């Protein structure tokens, strides 16, 4: 943005400077030429007044005039005699002299010469020998005397003005950009979950207003999270308290069979409520930006379970892609999911069953975790439905894994493995 401001100011300033400097430069040159012409005209003025009176003294006066001016001076007399610097009688001389027969009046004028100089011709009428013409040549160098210097001064002035404009623009850009950058930094911190981040509103009114709005947004997010935390705590209280009363009432039942059966039901209800509360707390647990490195978490959990594999004579093959593989889950949730899946392998396959763990990257980001065993395979029915695993567990573990996978933008699939065992594919999405 700062660069764009500088380019814009440079372009506009340059256009304005060119619009003024180019005519001014032309004017300076024209003025210098006019000044030189005027000086030459004034220099020969005494000669034109006295050319008819000088007679034999004319050559001397012409020479003196020429010396004073430092320019060639020629007097064309009416009798055809040429005094001073020899020059041919050109059409310009004839035009200045006029032609009585053709009713062309004598007139003074100046004309440009082929070498860049200028000739000034002044007719002197009323002489006995006819109209004389006084001619003075102004060389090109004299016509442009001082122009180069003036142009250098103008150029320098233009460059100075341009530099000054850029300096002022840079200061202005900084004064605009400082608050905007502070605003951007604060927004990035809020986005990263630093909810205490606030900006000191400053700069132009629009940026100041945006800063105040961002601060209000940060406060609002904090309030909402607090409200959500309180709602989750209240949910826990409201759901667990009646179940606690129910659990204590069940303990008071006299029939041992009824007591055992109802205690199991209450335990099942309690687990479902725990899961519900855990799910309600997910936004609080995850914060603004849930993310972790799957290679680190999976590697650590596999290392943790490896000792049990050794103690139960299971061959464990592990393949973890080079990290980091970032996924949209907090480390604790991913660790819980991996623990649930590995725990299932140990719980539902006999000792000695080999299994392998493969963690790889996904094309669209995130990671794919495959856990495949050579056990007896999947039981019938939907193993991911709570309470229907049919293998001595409630299925809640898989439900937790599925919820975590879906929360990350991925999925969980259980399919038969090629060699008859179970293949679990956990797809985890990338951080947002």
């Amino acid at each position, binding site marked *: 943005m700062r660069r764009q401001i500088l380019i814009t100011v440079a372009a506009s300033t340059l256009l304005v400077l060119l619009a003024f400097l180019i005519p001014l430069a032309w004017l300076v040159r024209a003025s210098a030429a006019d000044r030189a012409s005027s000086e030459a005209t004034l220099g020969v003025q005494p000669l034109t007044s006295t050319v008819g009176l000088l007679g034999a003294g004319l050559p001397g006066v012409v020479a003196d005039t020429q010396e004073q001016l430092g320019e060639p001076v020629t007097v064309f007399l009416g009798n055809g005699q040429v005094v001073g610097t020899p020059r041919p009688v050109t059409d310009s001389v004839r035009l200045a002299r006029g032609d009585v027969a053709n009713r062309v009046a004598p007139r003074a004028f100046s004309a440009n010469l082929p070498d860049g100089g200028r000739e000034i011709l002044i007719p002197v009428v009323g002489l006995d020998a006819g109209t004389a013409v006084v001619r003075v040549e102004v060389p090109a160098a004299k016509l442009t005397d001082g122009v180069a210097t003036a142009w250098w001064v103008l150029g320098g002035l233009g460059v100075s003005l341009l530099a000054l404009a850029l300096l002022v623009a840079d200061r202005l850009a900084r004064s605009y950009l400082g608050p905007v950058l502070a605003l951007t930094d604060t927004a990035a911190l809020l986005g990263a979950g630093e909810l205490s981040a606030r900006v000191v509103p400053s700069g132009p009114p629009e940026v100041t207003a945006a800063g105040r709005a961002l601060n209000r947004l940060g406060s609002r997010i904090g309030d909402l999270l607090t409200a959500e935390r309180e709602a989750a705590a209240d949910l*826990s209280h409201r759901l667990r*308290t009646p179940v606690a009363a129910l659990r204590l009432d069940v303990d008071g039942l006299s029939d041992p069979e009824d007591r055992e059966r109802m205690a199991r039901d209450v335990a099942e209800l309690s687990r479902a409520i725990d899961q519900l509360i855990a799910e309600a707390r997910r936004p609080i647990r995850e914060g603004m930006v849930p993310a972790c490195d799957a290679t680190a978490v999976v590697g650590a959990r596999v290392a943790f379970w490896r000792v049990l594999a050794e103690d139960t004579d299971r061959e464990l093959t592990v393949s973890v892609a080079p990290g980091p593989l970032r996924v949209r889950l907090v480390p604790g949730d991913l660790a819980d999911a991996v623990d649930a899946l590995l725990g299932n392998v140990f719980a539902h396959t006999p000792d000695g069953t080999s299994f392998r763990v493969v963690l790889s990257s996904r094309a669209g980001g995130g990671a794919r975790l495959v856990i495949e065993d050579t056990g007896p395979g999947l039981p019938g029915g939907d193993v991911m439905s709570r309470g229907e695993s049919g293998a001595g567990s409630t299925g809640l573990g898989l439900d937790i894994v599925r919820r975590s996978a879906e929360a990350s933008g991925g999925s969980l699939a259980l399919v038969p493995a090629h060699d008859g065992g179970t293949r679990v594919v956990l797809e985890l999405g990338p951080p947002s």
Partner: protein
Amino acid sequence: MAHVLVVEDDPSIRTALNRTLGERGHAVSSAPDAMSGLREALDNRPDLVVLDLGLPDLDGSELLRMLRAVSAVPVIVATARDDDASVVRALDAGADDYVVKPYSAETLDARIRAVLRRASSPDEEQPLVVGGLYVDPRSRVVTVDGQTVELSPREFDLLAYLAARPGQVVSKRELLTEVWRLPYGGADKTVDVHLSWLRRKLGENAQEPRYLVSVRGVGVKLVEPAA
């Protein structure tokens, strides 16, 4: 017989605790809010307080601080809050134990007895010695044949629980309830993997156990190694 004061705002739970704890030999009084609970605790001097944190007039943790300022009565916090911050806050404020709702009468009674036992004989947490194994619950130090063993907090709790019951087979469900505080936990493989780690650190394995002996289908016991 112990006098137990239940400070709980839910009338169903108060009634149920009055009945079930009474059936287990305790004299039970109750209070529905913090202020009446504090008054009851100061006037009648119960042997133990079962305290809910979600009280209508004052947070239970505040009541706990007030109680601690004037009384050394043992307190078991019994609440629906299961997050770590609440547990740590309650224990730091002076709670002697913490149970999360819903709990069974049996579990609560066991904790009441354990807390009362500790309160009556503060020196109970003596170091446990089983063969060459030395477990000190107070300093949380474990040595095997004089060599210090580094354990995670959960591994230490597991070993200390088993060492307090040498030769007694303890079921995995009991370990989940008492060590993990998961009375309804079904992930008994969690216990298995921790036992595997514990075995590694004690210098043994499942095939050649020394201290930790699995009893198939029943549980695990900690024994003195055969010479």
